[in-house]
């Protein structure tokens, strides 16, 4: 992890997971693992968040909520899929109500596998997300300085999500 200029804030949402990954995400914030030493703070407000941690395979009722949280977050933003369910649908892939992964709904940048994902790997995902956020925010700042219009910025942010999501 290189030098970061900003302290990104993290928001967590449970999109039809079994709770295992959620309590591990919370465990990351406790003194034993302490993700806050990397400069991230857990917040409940999407409008102040930069990194979205998604758990679970996303069901039909959750889909609009996840989309809404993603849209409410200011640009630039990074999405981390925590756990096997959020990556692929996992053990519930065949269930009738599961869409099969967070990337079916919003562009995902970083995938953290594991059932349940261990705090160490979640922290690794968060650290990578912080780096990616720094990169995106530099590009974003440059564009703002150049006087790029709001609509073009929105398109570019969508494009960045798509491109890196494929990798």
């Amino acid at each position, binding site marked *: 992890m290189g030098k970061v200029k900003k302290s990104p804030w993290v928001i967590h949402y*449970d999109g039809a997971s079994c709770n295992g990954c959620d309590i*591990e995400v*919370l465990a990351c914030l406790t*003194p*034993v693992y302490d993700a806050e030493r990397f400069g991230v703070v857990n917040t409940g407000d999407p409008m102040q968040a930069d990194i979205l941690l998604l758990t*679970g395979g996303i069901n039909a009722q959750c889909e609009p909520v996840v989309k809404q949280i993603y849209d409410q977050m200011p640009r630039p933003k990074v999405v981390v899929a925590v756990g096997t369910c959020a990556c692929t649908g996992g053990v519930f892939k065949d*269930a009738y109500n599961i869409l099969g992964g967070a990337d079916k709904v919003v562009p995902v940048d970083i995938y953290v596998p594991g059932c349940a994902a261990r705090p160490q790997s979640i922290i690794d995902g968060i650290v990578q997300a912080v780096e990616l956020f720094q990169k995106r925010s530099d590009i974003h700042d440059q564009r703002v300085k150049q006087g790029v219009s709001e609509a073009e910025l929105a398109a570019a942010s969508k494009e960045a999500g798509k491109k890196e999501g494929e990798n």
Partner: protein
Amino acid sequence: MGKQSTVPFGPQHPVLPEPVHLDLVMEDEKILKAIPSIGFVHRGLESLIEKKDYQEMVYVVERTCGICSFMHGMGYCEAVEHIMNLEVPKRARFLRTIWCEMSRIHSHLLWLGLLADAFGFESLFYQAWRMREKILDCFEMTTGGRVIFSVNTIGGVLKDMEPDHIKAILGAIEWIEGELKVIRRTFLFDATVETRLKGVGVLSKEEAHDLGCVGPFGRASGLKVDTRKRGYAAYPEIDFEPVTSTVGDCFARCDVRINEVFQSIDIIRQAVAKLPEEKDLNVPVKPVDTPLGEYFMRVEQPRGEACYYVKGNGTKLLDRLRIRTPTFANIPGMLKTLEGADYADVPILILTIDPCISCTER
């Protein structure tokens, strides 16, 4: 008399890590009615029995919930074992009891932490979660997993506890006992905590009985219900009495859960003392053996009584699986306590039933 207004609570809310939605009909600061709408975590887990055979289903049932995952797996396994008339080795039954009680300790400590977070006592939250990590370390040492550790199988358990493991578990529970006695003072005798919890959300014994409350939520109101007394795993050979209180407010629920942690520590000690030496940990199931018949299994989880209905038709795929989870039974009680409460107490009232939404919606 003020104007009525409706305030939405959730699904994404800082207090709860899980999504649940409530429409709170309010008059000024008082809540007149709470209307829940659920389904944000529904996965359709029970329908997976159409696609996975009864032995694979153990792993799916364990993922009903990440907190009491072991007990879900055990409840399902015991139901299938009853149908197939399998005699589980005695050591496996005692090991199940030990893992069950360790799950209860970790769940109650998790809840104590979340409660502290809900009334804004963040350092207490960290203390509770720091203690919980010791139990998770023991889980990792004995099974390899921290929260989900597929150690149950039809006919017994898959892993044994070595003497070193047992020594470490006894050390961990002794440490937790000492630490909990320290933070217990803050939970039960601190003026700020008392003001937030005492007299909030009182549920009488009759109301709790009529609304079908289970687990610590019902026991805090004076209902002496504990499914462990009915005897499964190795509980018939263990001496314990359900922890109850008569007050029925949020403070009593906190008190009951703290005392249950001490009770679980005692049960683990008893189980370890009686742990028989045996080589086989599970009875082998022949591929031709398939469940035929039905069974209704009841298991006491940290949140209360969970029921598993399993119906087999003689093939590898089961006919029906139904899980009734404790949070589902406690929701009517929670709505009753919400009526007439202050808006500021809503997070605490929701938390004191120890909601597990992923259990409820499966």
